[in-house]
Structure formats: C-alpha cells, structure tokens
C-alpha cells in the first residue's frame, strides 16, 4: 500500500452505471453478506469502465452501496492498483524486488525509462506508456519481469523489451510468447 494519501482527483461530472452493466452490479452485490464488501469489485468494474477513478466515479460507487464517499476514497487510496489519475494506454509495471534485482531488473527498468523517455511520473512523451517500478509480482523464477496492463512478460532483457514495445506500438498482438501460458521452470540457456 502507499502510506501517502492519494491526490484528490479531478472531477469529470456525475456518472451513472451504463444500463448494460446493471445486471453485473446486481450480481456483484449478491456475492456478499454486506453491501460494503462490494466496494472493491465495484471499484474494479468502475475502473474497467472509466479507465481511472475520479471523485465522481467514487461517489457513484458510494451511492450504489450506500456508504459515505469518504469511505470509498479511503479504500481506493489504500490499494495501489486503483488508479487515482490517468495513465498511458499501456501501464508498464517493472518488478524491482530482490529475485528480479539479482538477475538484472535495474538494467531493464533503466532501459525502459530511457527508450520511452518517461517524465518523473513515468509517463512517456507520446502519452502511450506509463512505466512504474513495483514490488514482487510473484514471477520471481522467470525474472526479470514486468506486467503490461494484465499480462506478464518474463525473462526480460533490454532487447526483448524493445521487441515488446515495438509490438505494442504497431498495434499487433504480443510479439513474444508469454511464459505465463505454459512453463513453470526456466532453464538459463
């Protein structure tokens, strides 16, 4: 978690759940004995819908489960994966924890930051990418690794990073096979 409070996000104006999502909202509420417990799944649904969580989206979640907006804000701030500000289309989270660091994470991170010319918030010049340093993503055997949006990319080198970035820029699907698909041991060649 981050111990610092999240910046108060800008307002996008009042929002409502799109009609198409209402059955999903109801289904989420039905999973738990209290409405409060739906706060995280609803924040996820909201983030999937509006890309990031501003105060108006948080107010909608608060209305849906009938709790004060401040409580939704407290929850949203506690968890790092709830986005309190917009990011690039591709959110690149590079692991910097020990197992990755032992096998070259720093070189990967620096390479990504340099080639994407990111600013102090990790945003690339073209606004397409956001590069963040994160802690262990439970992929330590296939280190160094990073997560781009939902997907894990493993056994990285600066060269494979370039390939992945080029693939994303060209809009083509992933350029590299993702070990997440099939392997659980990773012989060093």
């Amino acid at each position, binding site marked *: 978690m981050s111990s610092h409070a999240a910046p108060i996000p800008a307002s996008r104006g009042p929002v409502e759940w799109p009609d198409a999502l209402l059955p999903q909202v109801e289904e989420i509420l039905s999973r738990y004995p209290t409405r409060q417990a739906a706060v995280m799944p609803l924040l996820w649904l909201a983030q999937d819908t509006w890309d990031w969580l501003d105060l108006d989206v948080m107010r909608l979640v608060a209305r849906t489960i009938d709790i004060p907006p401040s409580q939704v804000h407290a929850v949203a701030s506690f968890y790092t*994966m709830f986005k309190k500000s917009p990011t690039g289309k591709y959110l690149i989270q590079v692991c910097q924890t020990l197992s990755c660091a032992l096998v070259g*994470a720093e070189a990967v991170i620096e390479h990504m930051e340099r080639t994407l010319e990111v600013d102090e918030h990790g945003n690339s010049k073209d606004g397409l990418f956001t590069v963040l340093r994160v802690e262990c993503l439970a992929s330590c055997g296939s280190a160094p690794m990073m997560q781009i949006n939902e997907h894990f990319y493993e056994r990285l080198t600066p060269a494979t990073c370039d390939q992945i970035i080029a693939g994303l820029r060209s809009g083509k699907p992933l350029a590299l096979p993702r070990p997440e698909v099939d392997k659980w041991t990773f*012989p060093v060649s």
Partner: protein
Amino acid sequence: MDFPRILSGNWELENSHKLDVARSCGTYGRVQKALAMPPVELIQIVKDSGLRGRGGAGFPTGMKWSFVPSAEKRGNKPVYLLCNADESEPGTFKDRYCMWKDPHLMIEGMIIAAHAIGCKVGYVYIRGEFRYIYDRLWEAVHEARAAGLLGENILGTGVDFQLHIHLGAGAYICGEETALISSLEGFKGQPKLKPPFPAVEGAWHAPTIVNNVETLAAVPWIIEHGAAAYKAIGTEKSPGTKLFSCSGHIRKPGVYEIPLGYPMRDLINVECGGLLPGRTLKAVIPGGSSVPIMTPDEVARCNMDYESINTLAGSYLGSGGMIVMDDTTDLVAALTNLLRFYAHESCGQCTPCREGCGWMYHILCRVRDNCATAEDLVTLKDLADNIHSKTICFFGASAAMPVQSFLLKFKGEFLARIEAASKGLPAGSHVSPASLSVVGA
C-alpha cells in the same frame, strides 16, 4: 528425480485447467466420498495426515479446522472458508501455477474443506496483479456450478457450497489473514490483533478459516489415499510434498514439487541445475523474503522441512520461496532492496513498523552508499530488535528478521562498507563484488 506429484501432477496436460480434463484425471472424484462423511471424520483424517499450512506459518491444517465452534456454540452464525491466493511474499510464485494450471484441484479441496468446517459460502482472495488468473478461476467456478459441483445440493448429497472469487488491488499486507478479512469486507486491508483468531471470529464476525491455495489443493489426495499414505511421504513432523519456488542465481529457476525433508543442496544442485558456471554459493533465503538468511554451511546441513531449517539454521521453511545468491551478490544491496519493499508495504498502523521500516531502509541506503558510521549499524540492529514482536501483525517481524540475520551472519560485508565510508571511498567501491544485478545486466 521422480517424486509423487500430488499438486502438480496434471500441469503438463493440455487444457489442464478445463473441467473435462481435470475430471479425466480424477479431480472431483473425491467429492462424493468426502461429502458423505461426517465433518468430524474429515477433520480427523486431515489431522492424522499431518498436513501443515503452506502459506508460511506451517500451522497444522486439521487442528485449525477443529477450532471452528460447533453449530450449537455459534448459534445462527455462518462459517466462512477463505482461500488465500494473495501470494505476495517476495520469492514465492507457486500458487500462481496451482491456479493457472489446475484451478479445479483447488476448488475440489475447498468443497471438501467447506464441508469439514460447516461452511456454505467461500471466497478465493486473489491478488489484483493476477487478473488473468482471476478470469480463469471464474471460468472454473462457472464450469463447476454447471456440473452441479458448486451451489446447492452438490451431486445430490444435500450439501451446499457456493464459491466466489474476490480480486485484491495491490497491497502485500492483504496476504496476512486478518488484513485479508478486512479487505474482503470492503475496508482498508489492515491487520487486527489476535485473539480473537479468525477461526472463532473472522469475516463479518463469523468463524472463518483462512487457508493457502497449496494447502487446499493437497486435501483431495489425502481424502482419496488416506492419512497414512500422506504421512508416508516426507518426514515425521513435515509430511507430504511441497511446492518450492526457486529463484535467483541458479541455472533452472522454477517451481518444483518435492517431498519435504529433501536435502537443500540437492534441490539447488539437482532440480535447480546448480549455480552458474564458475560461481560459488554465498547465501540462501529459504522460505520467502521474510525469513532469516542462511550461510552455505547451513545450506549443506539442512533439509527442506519445517524442523531442520529451524533447528539447524534458525530460519523457516515459510512459503517455500527459495532465493539463491552466489558470490557476485552484494548482500548489503540485497538487504537494502528488501527493506525498500517492507518500508513500502507497511500498512502504517503500528508506529514501530511504520517508522522503523522506513528508518531501517534509509540507514541501509547509507551503508550501501558508503556513507554510514559504525553507530548506524548499532541503530539498525536496535531498530530491528524493537520492531520484532512489538506490532499488531507478523509483518513487523518479517521486516526485522532479514535485518537481524544478515547482520548476524554476514557482518563482515556491513563492516567493510563502514570502513570504506571512513576512508571516504565513493559508493560502489568496497570489498564485496560490485553489483546486485549480475545476470542479463
């Protein structure tokens, strides 16, 4: 070597995550038998098997289940079963494959566990970064529901069990069971003081059992083959097989299922393919980043089981996340890296942990950068000693133990940095090799 593969046996199969493939391997074949048994009998089998929790603490699973108050005692309160799939301890990456490769085995384990403790609704709490696995788990749940394996009157036995998957959102501390419960309830993931233990008062103030993914996945095999068969594998106090997540400076990092009690050096040299050419072993963290570090001598003596690592090396088997470091590793930088992690992940409730982790991290940065004094090392140790056991949850100790053990077992590396500082040498110039990152850099 060929070992029984209780947990990972189906991983090689194509589409091993699909219900029909899982069923063809015998998964869900134990449900009918288990649900026909009285819960006390099920608990007794798991107790007799000696199965211990695979989430880190190694607590006997059957005993934990038996702590749930009886139906008379708990009145009209429900019982909850939570599967801990938060897997965030650095160096640990086994549950990820259990769920990705064989989600139905875990679900089968949950159905059986739920019956044993009298639970009708369970949840899998999975870390937010495993979004792609979260989707797969829901698919598996839907498949199982459609086949009458989850929901009301499972396979006509009269037993009900509904299962939901709950996605976390990036907070290491949510792996701690009371924090996990707070998070599931829709609050900040902050731990609570124990007692009351969750088994008595957990989620929504009802009795709650929290078990790790791997623990639950071991249950169906035990029901099928019996407690004695499980006890025949492993050692007296650590029966069965365990998944080890192996990372760091080895030729074949990955997840290995081996019987407990297997020699640590064989795990490193045989399964993991040994060290890289020309390297020698410097240190091993045997059970996830929170446990004390081990020297090569200790590695040579110890087996991968709860008692050997504890009595011979003062460390813990923990989650089975083994991080191997060779002679190119800068251990001061390694410890600094870990303390950055703990400083970032402290939930902030307890002063010793919140302030202490950041403080220790900052001292370590100075040691690493050749600008610390001998007094700093004294402060560092003081801080660690004053965090350990003085906080609400075990996170404080988890941050303190690496510091205490690195300082105890590798003091020379730290003293060399102090000496370098006293000579005014710039960061990076010290007696131990230069970089934390050696491979692929």
